[in-house]
């Protein structure tokens, strides 16, 4: 027989968290000890006061706030060049000056790389400057004389996967890394029910399709080609 019960025993017993044999012992003691019974009832009253507190309902606008914050976090971190450009774009200037900067900065950068005689240089550029939307852009600059003014984007990370740009049969194709050379088992239109289902699951793929490119990816154990075509 226990002399008097501790608060810890009473509390655990109240919660149904005392071991089986301990519970039997506590019940036996409570049946014969008025002091411990009073303490137990007092603890029950305290706890039931807490149980009766209403749950606080989140304010109506909170969900919108959180989703907006998360959407902002989903966007890519600007690369170094992007930071420089963002800084330039945030200068108190008019839209025409910003547009001029958008053209001038990559042009000056390209000329600088050519004049320096750099053979292979990897440059990360902000996605806003590129023709193709992407999360991460890596551009390889060749020392060719006919370097285009707007550098082509060759890889892109979308929907958690890496895609490589290929020109196949006169059309642009984004191929999921590792699937280069694999013939797609299924061709899907983005408007078909399966295409819509795929896009609903990986909405970012729409970015790659936006300019008419096709996308080859692994989906449900198959290599699938997705295109905007009807």
């Amino acid at each position: 027989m226990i002399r008097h019960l501790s608060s810890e025993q009473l509390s655990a017993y109240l919660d149904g968290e005392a071991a089986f044999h301990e519970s039997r012992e506590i019940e036996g003691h409570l049946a014969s000890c008025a002091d411990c019974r009073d303490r137990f009832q007092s603890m029950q009253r305290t706890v039931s006061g807490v149980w009766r507190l209403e749950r606080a309902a989140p304010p109506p606008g909170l969900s919108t706030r959180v989703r907006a914050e998360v959407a902002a976090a989903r966007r890519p971190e600007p690369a170094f060049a992007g930071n420089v450009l963002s800084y330039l774009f945030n200068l108190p200037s008019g839209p025409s000056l910003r547009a001029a900067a958008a053209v001038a900065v990559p042009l000056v950068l390209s000329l600088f790389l050519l004049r320096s005689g750099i053979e292979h240089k990897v440059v990360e550029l902000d996605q806003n400057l590129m023709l193709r939307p992407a999360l991460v852009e890596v551009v390889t600059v060749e020392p060719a004389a006919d370097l285009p003014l707007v550098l082509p984007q060759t890889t892109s990370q979308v929907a958690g996967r890496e895609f490589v740009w290929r020109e196949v049969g006169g059309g642009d194709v984004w191929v999921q890394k590792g699937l280069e050379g694999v013939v797609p088992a299924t061709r899907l239109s983005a408007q078909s029910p399966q295409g819509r289902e795929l896009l609903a699951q990986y909405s970012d793929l729409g970015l790659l399709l936006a300019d008419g490119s096709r996308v080859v990816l692994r989906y449900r154990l198959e290599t699938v080609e997705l295109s905007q075509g009807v």
Partner: protein
Amino acid sequence: MLAHASWEDPVGVATVSAVVRDLDVDLELAERHRYGDARAFNEVYSRFEDMVYNLSYRLAGNREEAADLTQEIFLRVFRHLGSFGGRSTLKTWIFRIAVNHCRDRLSRWHPPTQPIGEETGEGVAVYADPSRGPEELAVAADDKRRVEEALTRLPQVFREVVVLRDIEGLSYEEIADVLGVRIGTVRSRIARGRDQLRTLLET
């Protein structure tokens, strides 16, 4: 006397199955999030918004602060959901992030002088009981305000366990998982928290 679950109880088997099923769902959500499925986080948010807000509110004692805390906690959840490995349930994983974040923030934040019970009723679900007279309702409202005030005066370490147990309804094992302490520590902290709460209510 209270009913106790025992190992012979067949309900225990169903509970274990439910936990395994929940864990499968949790892991699938994390995997979908890793592969860029935006709906996965939305599902997590819908499932746990109420729980995280309520916990933040009870720990901070202030609705505005609770909303800010909830927003920051879910941003953390969003950033780390891909690394959720299923060593605990998503529920206790999110509670752990929430408690740690609240500790971090509230250690630098001083609550307003206005006690929690004197705030407006906006945002708190109040269920009127038509069978209770105005006097009885006034007494109940006063009791509620006293409990809320006493709760905000509990030291953080005890407030956490009392809120997790008596408001959020977590088991001792879940609380131990959330706080990263042993079950014996949880048992002792809950008892001491309740004792202190009773003393605060009696004064």
